[in-house]
């Protein structure tokens, strides 16, 4: 299982999401990268990352079946490669809790 699933991630602060019928467009204002998020579920996951305890929690909240978690994890790694999403620093208080 991909270790990313157990990690806290977040949408990059430099990224804007524009809703589209197929999902969303993600635009990074820093590196000018543009990526189609081709499923509404993926958009929900990306939006939820910042508040979810980890990626798996965001996937489950978006209704993504466990059988598809590896594909979503791979897609999220693709988004991470262009800084669309990034690892979320864990606050000291959150680490202790």
């Amino acid at each position, binding site marked *: 299982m991909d270790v990313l699933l157990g990690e806290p991630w977040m949408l990059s602060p430099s990224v804007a999401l524009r809703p*589209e*019928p*197929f*999902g969303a*467009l993600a635009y990074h204002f820093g590196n*000018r*990268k*543009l*990526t*189609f*998020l*081709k*499923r509404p579920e*993926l958009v929900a996951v990306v939006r939820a990352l910042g508040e979810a305890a980890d990626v798996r929690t965001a996937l489950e909240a978006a209704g993504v079946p466990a*059988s*598809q978690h590896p*594909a*979503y994890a*791979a*897609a999220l*790694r*693709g*988004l991470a490669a*262009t800084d669309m999403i990034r690892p979320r620093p864990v606050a000291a208080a959150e680490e202790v809790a």
Partner: protein
Amino acid sequence: MNPETDNQIQQGELAAEDLIEEVSIDGMCGVY
């Protein structure tokens, strides 16, 4: 390049390429 039609995916055959597609911003000229 048509994300709408790309959404026709069989359950259980999902791949990362079905979920995201990086595009050239130059290729979007005239579209957005």
